[in-house]
């Protein structure tokens, strides 16, 4: 569905379902140079199993208008505004990579509005190498190729986002190119990476967060290694870790494992 958030037209995937105030809500937040469609399987499942699903395209990404968020905090404020626009007082948040930082920041700044938190493919701090930061600005297509390789760990993934026969290297690359093209200035990649790199409030946010936290990590993740997640895992007061045999694109390389972990964790 389309709605207006902060004065901008915002696309929010709901699996074709109308928002129902009587149902619990779960928000899925995508990562850098991605959009709502990276959650295609998990969002459909929850939308058809008793939940309101809100999977927005972040501002400036694909179907959503506006400027791409310059910081994690700005993106978290956007999610808050999205919840406000729909009158949602409290929701479960699921975020991948950059999206996990956004969800964490919101859980820290407004603990009363987050019922549960799922951080997929995460690390705090989420440092990006200077070379990759520079490449994402000046040679974004080359940076896409590099990030795409770092984000995948297998040449024989299971049936995934488009069903059997999906080639994830290709589909992830095509999506990143599409998102890049949605920003006429071509800076959206760099903006996202810089926001990740600059975010320093993660540990404090986790200390303020009141909810249970599920970490879903990829044992072969080269972007946010399980080791890099240990610091934030240790700060979670009620944290649970599920490690899956996958790379950074966990939702695509291990769609069933991610779904099962979330099914076990998320409660209406």
């Amino acid at each position, binding site marked *: 569905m389309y709605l207006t958030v902060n004065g901008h037209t915002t696309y929010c*995937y709901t699996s*074709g379902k109308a928002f129902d105030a009587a149902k619990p809500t779960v928000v899925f937040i995508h990562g850098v140079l991605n*959009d*709502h*469609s990276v959650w*295609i*399987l998990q969002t*459909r*499942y929850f939308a*058809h*199993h008793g939940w309101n699903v809100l999977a927005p395209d972040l501002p400036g990404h*694909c*179907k959503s208008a506006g400027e791409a968020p310059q910081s994690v905090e700005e993106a978290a404020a956007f999610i808050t505004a999205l919840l406000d626009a729909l009158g949602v007082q409290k929701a479960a948040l699921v975020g991948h990579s950059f999206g996990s930082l956004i969800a964490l920041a919101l859980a820290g700044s407004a603990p009363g509005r987050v019922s549960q938190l799922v951080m997929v493919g995460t690390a705090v701090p989420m440092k990006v190498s200077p070379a990759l930061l520079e490449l994402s600005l000046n040679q974004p297509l080359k940076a896409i*190729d*590099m990030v*795409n*390789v*770092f984000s*995948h*760990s*297998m*040449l*024989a*993934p*299971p*049936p*995934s*986002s*488009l*069903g*059997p*026969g*999906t*080639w994830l*290297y*290709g*589909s992830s690359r*095509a*999506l990143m*190119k*599409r998102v890049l093209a949605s920003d006429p200035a071509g800076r959206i990649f760099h903006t996202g990476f810089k926001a990740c790199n600059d975010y320093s409030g993660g540990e404090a946010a986790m200390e303020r967060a009141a909810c249970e936290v599920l970490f879903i990590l990829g044992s*072969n993740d080269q972007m946010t290694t399980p080791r890099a997640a240990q610091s934030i895992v240790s700060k979670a007061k009620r944290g649970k870790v599920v490690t899956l045999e996958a790379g950074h694109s966990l939702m695509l390389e291990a*769609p*069933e494992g991610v*779904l099962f972990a979330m099914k076990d964790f998320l409660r209406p």
Partner: protein
Amino acid sequence: MPGYSDPGFDTLALHAGAAPDPATGARAVPIHLTTSFVFESSDHAASLFNLERAGHVYSRISNPTNAVLEQRVSALEGGIGAIATASGQAALHLSIATLMGAGSHIVASTALYGGSQNLLHYTLRRFGIDTTFVKPGDIAGWRAAVRPNTKLFFGETVGNPGLDVLDIAAVSGIAHDAGVPLLVDSTLTSPWLIKPLDHGADLVYHSATKFLSGHGTVIGGIVVDGGSFDWEKSGKFAELTEAYDGFHNMVFSEESTVGAFLLRARREGLRDFGACMSPHTAWLILQGIETLPLRMARHMSNTEKVVDFLASHPFVSRVGHPLLESHPSHALARQLLPRGAGSVFSFDLKGSRAQGKAFVESLKVFSHLANVGDCRSLVIHPASTTHFRMTDEALLDAGITQGTIRLSIGLEDPDDLIDDLKRALKAAEKAGA
């Protein structure tokens, strides 16, 4: 496990889509000859039908062996995914039927495989889909042929029968200006010679019967989506961008930003038209693809030797291969197809229809049959076989003379191929005496 750059072509040809079988440890791809797959529970069944979980339900829609083939060809073409079909013609039909219905229009190259030409010129017209044919090199003609109801541009990487090379970048540019995708048949080139998606095509398909399989054993097809065409921005494809009553009111372009075509093609096209591939066929094509790089290199080197031989033979009036400077697509082929423009080409004997027949009947190594892209060398004489009903005038219009011979160069010792041709050319000359 991938390293710090994309795996290379030869690695993907062996490994993309396949890992040791977790249940048995089998290293080769297992053949899953089963119609159906047991559900874990009612909820699992419902989730599979509603695309909440990815998996196999029924082998008309998907199958684990076919999925390996689909991933592998996608990887080799640089696509996002693929759908294996019963034949190359089924892949073409599936592509068209997914994108349009009655009242739509296609702009297509004149240089097409006969079966494709028949489908567009006769069969689809019966179903209300009209086609305008344009010579592949007539760039202005492609643009002029666009109508408000145009939904697709279509051509072959190297067109039948003259091996006209399609300027994919130029033609796709015009297609995109018109808000429609370019579909390319890359059967005669295979991804080893050219990846059309890299040059601007949006969809690519193969008759996998030919070089992908490579051994003349099975009929199959496959269509690959590049994921680059923006169906919503185009505004011409309600089939992909509006709720579809026939599948849970799904809006395919909302479900997947880059994969709407594949979602609908599998959920509607395979489900309803049913032109699926047998898993056994998929396995045989996979066997072929494992050696595709090696075979294509040999196809190209043998072709070069045979073309050189024929071009200098006094009883040959024309050799239609872009390797030769005299070919109209020579320069474009060097640019787009640096490894070669394929091993299927025609040449003209200086002789009658009877001499053409004599030539074919004198060959010992080349097999006289109606196929191309086999590991064995093949030959056919169009005037006495595929085009035998046509008048001399109609043949000339199609670029075929009484002495036109089509060859598909295989993997034999090149000296044996040349000896065979030499002997047959002599016999043809004698037949005219």
